[in-house]
């Protein structure tokens, strides 16, 4: 009887774990099954390398290069903003703040990670964008620059909290050794602590990249929505997630346009999956050290 209960309970935990695999499989299967039929109409090469995205024209154009580039621009911009702010906060919290300061700052950063993206989007649309127009005298404030700023701020908590974890696992004796050799705090941070937690910091950046490239609401509301390759950062773009979110509601299920949106999801998934693999690589490298 006891043996039976033991095995029953154990089996339940195994079955629950299998659900994670099932869900992932379901996600992959659903986007591939709905996305691949597109390639009956469009060649993969044209889909990825063509810049014209006119899904409702007759005949339609399903080239997503400008959407991919739009995503990469906005994501890169977000990382350029988030990296110094996030890493800077992490180093400050881990190395410079007093224990009391750390106890306050850490939970605040954690709290910020929970701010809904749609609220950031609202802020970007109604406050940041008009401000951009006024300050820079540009025709639209919904552009790469605005989207990068908002997205960057969203990614700060991710980079900050994960980098902080990495920094705080650097053993104390490493720091003490550096101090004992006459280095000051700044030199110890730059020459000992940060290099020692390089893997953790890199994986936090990759996670931030994954979050930024897949974030939907902010870019849907702030990036402007024009399917073009921008010539400067003040032009609007239409990143991949925004395209899916904006157009899925207006398309006929089963139409080429519908499949094309799932095709975009496949590309988006592969990009994020690649970023996850790179993250894993950094984490494993850290473990093996």
């Amino acid at each position, binding site marked *: 009887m006891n043996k039976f209960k033991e095995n029953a309970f154990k089996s339940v935990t195994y079955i629950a774990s299998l659900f994670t695999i099932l869900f992932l499989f379901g996600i992959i299967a659903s986007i591939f099954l709905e996305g691949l039929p597109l390639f009956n109409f469009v060649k993969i090469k044209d889909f990825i390398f063509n810049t014209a995205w006119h899904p409702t024209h007759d005949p339609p154009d399903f080239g997503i290069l400008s959407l991919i580039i739009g995503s990469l621009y906005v994501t890169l911009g977000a990382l350029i903003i988030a990296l110094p702010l996030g890493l*800077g906060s992490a180093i400050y919290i881990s190395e410079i703040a007093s224990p009391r300061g750390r106890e306050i700052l850490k939970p605040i950063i954690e709290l910020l990670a929970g701010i809904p993206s749609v609220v950031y989007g609202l802020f970007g649309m109604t406050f940041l964008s008009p401000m951009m127009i006024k300050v820079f005298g540009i025709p639209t404030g919904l552009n790469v620059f605005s989207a990068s700023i908002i997205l960057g701020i969203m990614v700060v908590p991710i980079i900050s909290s994960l980098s902080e974890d990495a920094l705080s696992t650097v053993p104390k004796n490493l720091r003490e050794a550096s101090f004992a050799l006459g280095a000051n705090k700044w030199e110890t941070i730059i020459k000992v602590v940060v290099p020692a937690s390089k893997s953790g910091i890199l994986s936090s950046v990759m996670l931030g990249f994954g979050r930024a490239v897949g974030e939907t609401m902010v870019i849907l509301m702030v990036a402007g929505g024009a399917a073009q390759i921008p010539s400067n950062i003040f032009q609007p773009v239409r990143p991949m*997630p925004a395209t899916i979110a904006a157009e899925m*509601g207006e398309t006929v299920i089963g139409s080429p346009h519908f499949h094309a949106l799932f095709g975009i999801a496949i590309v988006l998934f592969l990009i994020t999956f690649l970023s996850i693999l790179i993250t894993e690589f950094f984490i494993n490298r850290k473990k093996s050290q």
Partner: protein
Amino acid sequence: MNIRKIKAFIGVNVLRLFIAITFIFLLVFLYVIFAKGGKMISWEFLTQSPRRFMTEGGIYPAIVGTFWLTILSIGFALPLGVLTAIFLTSYAKPAWLVRIVRVAINTLAGVPSIIYGLFGLTVFVQLFKFDVSILSGTLTLGVLAMPMIINASEEAIKSVPRDFREASLALGATERQTILRVILPTALPNILTGTIISIGRVAGETAPILFTAATFYTRLRPTSVFDEVMVLPDHIYALMTEGSHAAKQMPIAYGTAVVLLALVLFVSGVAIIIRYKIRKKRKW
């Protein structure tokens, strides 16, 4: 002052500047939202349905919708997540299965929320024929919450000292008895606070329910899990992008944002404080 001291001085203050920029931006952000939306908040706003094509009235149905979607999706994901965490921490065999499960969890954690929306659309809405409904939205959000709950639970279980497990086994307890009577009760407060903190994200998610549960406008309160619902995040988006009275809709969007933000920050804030108290109090 020598050059090393100057470098150190500049470096430390640049870090201060970075953290200051982050906080100033966030203060401005919070100020703008609360200043513009705060004045919308009234008893009527919280308890009435929208009127005249979203240009008047309150957001009560969206509050109810968000409440149910969040609660039900946690109810779905928490048991699965905790059991998976038990598998990963206590049984963890065979090694290849653990590896696959870990890859699955990490990948699920990184999948963009819009893809969760597409998954929910094809699987729950179309394949299972649940339609655009609370049920479809709950399941979609539940899957999205799984990796967060697993990570929170695993961390909580790992923080239970090994001593407790050994003591229990040495008294002749089985693995199951040890988990259910010692490890889980000890880890539970941390599992729950960790889950609640991450659940803020679930309550604020917009994209996954865009095609699975949300409707722009309904005056009816949901009566079953097969009804579609209004939810706070999608309501904000809808107010800003649909309808024809932008000037009248924007203040309502701000009001809704205040409610959503206050809810999320309040609930996770309380969880963070409780967790802090637990950590201070515990003696092992």
